[in-house]
């Protein structure tokens, strides 16, 4: 169990002496280590050679899209047709079980996997683990490496394959940590209010309860130890009648305070409703992918072979005929039939649409600190590959190497625009939040920012005015720009209308019982009968922005989607430690993030441009008198 550093220990930590030291290496490629990207395509021949030299290899990656891509690339060079399989959470269960069984029988030479194989896979004679991409956390790496030679007396053998230059440093840091036995599993998060609401109703379903007793019981659980009585009472009100300031639902109450001082269910059907909706795992809407031979009426009716599940949101970006990578094959999207996505085998080898999605782990705080420390200390660069060492050496020459607690801010012109690049090393999530907030503040400071892009390591913001010159003449103050007050009003006003908050709200609304889950069979009745949580959110925000469910949503988004606490720690850490340098041109350290620009969509809503464009032809036709009379 993870322990909170502040709280007293809740369990004994047992350290086992002995055991074989793992044999871990970072792949040193003959090829050039890329500046950015996550595919590690450059190292494939070496990865393939390693697979050939071992009995069974487990290849770990961080996302499903990386797994698909790596699998496809390996088969492209698989001249010996080694049995190499794919395993990730979106694949059909039957297919996954087949891979697991084949692995147990030692029939496979390699399996490309995501976190689905992190834990509990102890069968098969795995003698090598290859980790493609940075591990993002030392504990996660230890867990994954442990999949090889799962015996105390034999060393685990592993190769780390960094996908870009910063990842080389990150791999090095994780490796050092692993040798030292560091654990960096994130601490327990605070208890969520939507889960509490579900629990309160569940308790009433079981038996009438007294608020005092339940409050005492709930606060005895570590995540809810800090729950105030006022918040608890508001949650009980929420369960009873929705907890709105406008009290018009009293007569429809689900639970009522009775004369004997207990809260009781008002109708047994609410117990049934509760049982249908209990649970706290809300999955993104997924559709089943079915492979059909040809797009014919009978093939569609038969349904085809299931390949797995895919996010509805991803499919919404496709048009029939588009090709994408799934289950190791290039598939052609044919259309959606009821709750299935129909696909055929594509003739092309190159998928048109890359499939992003799945989990993205943030860089652990511990590893981030280690990477900063390594960067700050040229003496430690000797363990890094030549290319990476040279890169850092040129950075030292042309710009600055920041100290371990400094925040380096570089400004330089690039074409007609001006850039500001910062290197907080706090993970993409926290950087995205910070980038969003900084852009707002730069706008207020009249620096005319146009957009930003964030990676795990750095952020680049660009705009029309020379931010370097503004800092020099005092019209832009870095101390003010990075002041901790940005987590107040700025964060709030940005968040309020952000789609991130709507996503959290949907989850909270379902878990807390405000909106019912969709049950199997209900999908067919069509979208018009379901409640749109986005619209409910808009109405609630406009009329009662401090409703308890809005607070629950906010807390949820702040931890899960925004990493606000990490941004807050960062701002505290860098106070009086901001180092600015104005450059004539891009610095070596800035190259990776600069290459990301354009690969990602930029801030802001795409307004009506697409609509205007698409309507042009019809608009002309309309003006010319058709359709109609």
């Amino acid at each position, binding site marked *: 169990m993870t322990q909170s550093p502040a709280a007293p220990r809740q369990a004994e930590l047992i350290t086992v002496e002995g055991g074989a030291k793992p044999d871990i290496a970072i792949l040193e490629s003959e090829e050039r280590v890329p500046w950015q990207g996550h595919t590690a395509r450059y190292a494939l021949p070496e990865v393939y050679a390693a697979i050939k030299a071992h009995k069974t290899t487990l290849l770990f990656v961080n996302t499903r899209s990386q797994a698909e891509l790596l699998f496809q690339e390996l088969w492209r060079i698989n001249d010996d047709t080694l049995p190499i399989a794919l395993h990730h959470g979106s694949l059909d269960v039957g297919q996954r079980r087949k891979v697991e069984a084949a692995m147990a029988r030692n029939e496979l030479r390699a399996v490309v996997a995501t976190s689905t194989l992190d834990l509990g896979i102890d069968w098969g004679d795995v003698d090598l683990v290859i980790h493609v991409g940075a591990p993002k956390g030392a504990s996660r790496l230890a867990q994954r490496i442990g999949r090889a030679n799962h015996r105390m007396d034999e060393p685990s053998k592993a190769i780390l394959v960094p996908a870009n230059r910063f990842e080389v440093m990150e791999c090095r840091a994780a490796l050092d940590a692993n040798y030292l036995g560091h654990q960096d599993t994130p601490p327990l998060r605070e208890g969520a209010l939507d889960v509490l609401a579900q629990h309160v109703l569940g308790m009433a379903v079981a038996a009438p309860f007294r608020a005092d007793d339940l409050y005492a019981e709930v606060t005895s659980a570590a995540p809810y130890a800090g729950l105030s009585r006022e918040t608890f009472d508001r949650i009980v009100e929420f369960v009873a009648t929705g907890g709105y300031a406008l009290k*018009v639902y009293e007569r*429809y109450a689900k639970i009522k305070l009775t004369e004997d001082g207990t809260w009781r269910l008002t109708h047994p059907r609410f117990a049934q409703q509760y049982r249908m909706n209990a649970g706290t795992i809300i999955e993104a809407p997924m559709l089943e992918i079915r492979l059909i031979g040809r797009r014919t009426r009978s093939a569609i009716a038969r349904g085809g072979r299931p390949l797995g599940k895919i996010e509805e949101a991803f499919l919404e970006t496709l048009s029939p005929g588009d090709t994408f990578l799934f289950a190791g094959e290039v598939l052609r999207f044919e259309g959606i039939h009821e709750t299935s996505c129909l696909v055929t085998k594509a003739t092309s080898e190159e998928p048109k649409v890359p499939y992003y999605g799945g989990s993205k782990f943030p860089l652990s705080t511990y590893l981030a600190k280690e990477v900063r420390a390594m960067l700050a200390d040229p003496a430690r660069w000797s363990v890094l590959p030549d290319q990476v060492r040279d890169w850092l050496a040129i950075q030292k020459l042309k710009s600055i190497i920041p100290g371990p607690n400094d925040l380096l801010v570089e400004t330089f012109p690039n074409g007609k625009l001006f850039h500001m690049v910062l290197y907080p090393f706090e993970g993409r999530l926290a950087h995205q939040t910070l980038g969003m907030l900084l852009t707002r503040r730069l706008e207020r400071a009249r620096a005319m920012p146009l957009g930003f892009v964030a990676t795990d390591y750095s952020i680049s913001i660009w705009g029309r005015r020379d931010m370097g010159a503004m800092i020099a003449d005092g019209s832009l103050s870095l101390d003010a720009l990075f002041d901790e007050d940005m987590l107040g009003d700025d964060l709030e006003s940005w968040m309020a209308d952000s789609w991130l908050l709507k996503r959290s709200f949907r989850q909270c609304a379902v878990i807390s019982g*405000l909106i019912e889950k969709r049950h199997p069979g209900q999908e067919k009745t*069509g979208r018009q009968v379901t*409640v749109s949580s986005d619209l409910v959110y808009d109405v609630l925000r*406009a009329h009662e922005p401090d409703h308890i469910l809005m607070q629950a949503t906010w807390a949820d988004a702040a931890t899960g989607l925004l990493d606000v606490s990490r941004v807050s720690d960062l701002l505290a850490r860098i106070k009086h430690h901001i180092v600015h340098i104005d450059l004539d041109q891009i610095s070596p350290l800035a190259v990776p993030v600069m290459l990301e620009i354009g690969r990602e969509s930029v801030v802001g809503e795409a*307004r009506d441009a697409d609509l205007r464009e*698409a309507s042009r032809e*019809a608009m002309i036709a309309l003006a010319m008198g058709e359709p109609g009379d």
Partner: protein
Amino acid sequence: MNALARRLKQGECEALEIALAGERVACDPSGVLYLPAEDCLVVTDLHLEKGAAFARRGMFLPPYDTAATLALLALCLDRYRPARVVCLGDSFHDRKGAALMPEGERDALAGLMRGRDWIWIAGNHDPEPPQGIGGETLLDVTIGSLSFRHEPTTGLRRGEVSGHLHPVARLAGRGSRRACFATDGDRMILPSFGVTTGGLNVLDRAFHGLFDMPRALACMIGHAGIYPVRFGALAAG
């Protein structure tokens, strides 16, 4: 952006005037249809008291939807000042909605109806006249050369204006779903007006056979106006 804030702003945008079965009609970005020749405003699927209807079943949706919908409708009425209003059905989310409507909302609605010829078309959610609200309840009505009813009749119909299906459209390959007026120049299906009503894609099976496809347009409600887009340029979902 908050959908309510956006809809408030849309009231300031220009309407799209098009020909419908020989009549000039204006598709207003707020989601209502205006017939200048008849000085008549048409709105559909208000779904008033939807929050309360859900609350009766144990889902406590915010009790603010009726007030918000009526406020938006008030803006439309202020702008066009129509002599006559036709509500194309599903004006209340359930049969009890009108009778149990709280005082404040009831007064607000009465204020909007005052001095106007007001027609409630019966819908599947509200098949009976709204209790204690006033106005005239009909199954359908013909005004000028156009006929108005809740559910579209199957097949091609010249001059029919209906609601019920909550049409939305999405551009192929990009963008989000937008409410739209669906028309082929002969018939029209209006977008739902209520603030918490969802939508059904015009490419869905429910719309099959209702339009002359080569001429079918989704007049999509954007941020700054209404954009007619051919069905061929749309995507499902």
